[in-house]
């Protein structure tokens, strides 16, 4: 059913797409040409393309170290997320006394944003002696309530007969999770992995609080430190931006559907 004003719709959407893509195009153009950092009026098309700002970023800042930090923290977060959330979600599929209360408690925890707990989180991390370490950065991000419910929705769909058969065969509970639940919930697993990875990769406030020396910085923090040192006097800043954005964009494009479904799983219920 093609609407009669398809052209108008396309036109409107094209304008909106241009507005949404303009910042990307602009920063990409500046990172490869270096125009418009100091000169005015700005030009729309690039005049002379060179990749030298990327070389600058690679050598002037310990870029590899920053990427390694971000990757280590994200891997820690993703693994911990999957393990803890799967366990929690499995527990929520069993019937026990006070289950309704626990679910209500978890739901109300969803209302407390992480930013409201930064002070106690900082104090606890300090007491544990984990300031300025990978584990310290990863720890508060290790479990998100949304992920628990994503897993729970998927575990609930596993037929009880399967679980009962596994129990009769004598499998211990955690084996049931590993061999029965998880293989049937690969989609939820993938969604959680992607969500957890993106949240920990983009996380800025917590590393800002915890990290004390330059070597342990993660990528968002490194980018903001670079900005505060050099302001916008060099195209290397924008090359840094692009280098930092590319993994996020690539991951998103590869797993679009999962990502969107994971985020909107609340919209289609209730």
């Amino acid at each position, binding site marked *: 059913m*093609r*609407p009669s004003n*398809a052209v108008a*719709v396309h036109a*409107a*959407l094209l304008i*909106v*797409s241009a507005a*949404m*893509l303009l*910042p*990307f195009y*602009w*920063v990409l153009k*500046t990172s490869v040409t270096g125009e*418009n950092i*100091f000169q*005015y*009026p*700005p030009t729309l098309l690039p005049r002379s393309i060179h990749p030298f700002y990327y070389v600058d970023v690679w050598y002037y800042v310990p870029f590899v170290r920053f990427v390694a930090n971000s990757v280590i923290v994200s891997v820690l977060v993703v693994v911990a997320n999957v393990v803890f959330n799967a366990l929690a979600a499995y527990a929520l599929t069993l019937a026990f006394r006070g*289950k*309704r209360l626990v*679910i*209500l408690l978890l*739901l109300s925890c*969803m*209302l407390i*944003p*992480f*930013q*409201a707990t*930064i*002070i106690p989180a*900082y104090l606890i991390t300090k007491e544990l002696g984990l300031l300025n370490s990978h584990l310290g950065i990863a720890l508060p991000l290790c479990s998100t309530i949304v992920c628990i*419910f994503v897993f729970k*929705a998927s575990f609930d769909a596993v037929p009880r007969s399967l679980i009962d058969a596994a129990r009769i065969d004598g499998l211990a509970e955690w084996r049931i999770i590993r061999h029965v639940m998880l293989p049937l919930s690969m989609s939820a697993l993938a969604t959680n992995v992607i969500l957890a990875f993106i949240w920990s990769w*983009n996380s*800025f*406030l917590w590393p*800002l*609080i915890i990290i004390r020396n330059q070597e342990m910085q993660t990528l*968002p923090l490194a*980018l*903001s430190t670079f*900005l505060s040192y050099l302001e*916008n006097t060099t195209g290397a800043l*924008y090359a840094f*931006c692009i280098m930092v954005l590319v993994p*996020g*964009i690539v*991951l998103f*494009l590869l797993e*679009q559907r999962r990502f*969107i479904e994971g*985020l909107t799983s*609340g*919209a*289609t*219920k*209730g």
Partner: protein
Amino acid sequence: MQTWSPFRPSRFAGVAHYEELFFHDEVFWQSFWNTLSFMASAPIAIALALVLALLVNAHIRGRGVYRTIIFLSYPLMPVAVGIIWRWLYDEKVGLLNYLLLSLGLVEQRIAFLDSYQWAMPSVIVAAVWQIVGFFMVILLAGLQNVPPSLLEAAAIDGASAWQRFRRITLPLLRPAMFLCLMLGIINSFTSFDLIYVMTGGGPNHATEVLITYIYRSAFVLSKFDYAAALTVVLFVFLLSLTWAANRATGGEAGAVDAAE
């Protein structure tokens, strides 16, 4: 409730901090007001997203591509987005100033992020740019749940497109819109990265929101006790808003079914 800092042992101080907060602190009220204005932008973003969702939902070719492009801004790092927008807003070489000047809309360049009245709207525009894709996708999911048979029956009965939209689609979209509103409110309370990178609190606290003020009090000025009081205020405020919104739309909405 306690006088505390990393350097002194704690003493019980009653409500002294709250008193200082509410009655003697200009910056607190400024940041409160800024948070409110940030929140007020959520309905605007939702309206924009609704228009976009309606456009993308129309059966045209390539709507998957449009959806991807519009949603692309959401999974990005807010720090990088802040740097990009900071530069678009630049007074001397920013693109926005150039566009405004060449379109003849203004006489001279505006210092967006350095002027007291333009700083907060500028930050809000950047935040809306980042989140409108997310809202659009949620509303799109809601739109696709509207049964087409209902719309067709109404069309046969002679209802115009606007009437069909107002009477059928809009009420069925209420849960999705409520979710967007909640997310917008929570986003305005927790949006630290963007503001910190773009203005760092703004020219003379023009863009200071509660969360940046909490960060500054706790980790820059080391006044942990005062920051704790601020956090409690933030949390109570957020909770009461959530509760009020929940009541206003009639009870249990969004989230996951709690009955088991």
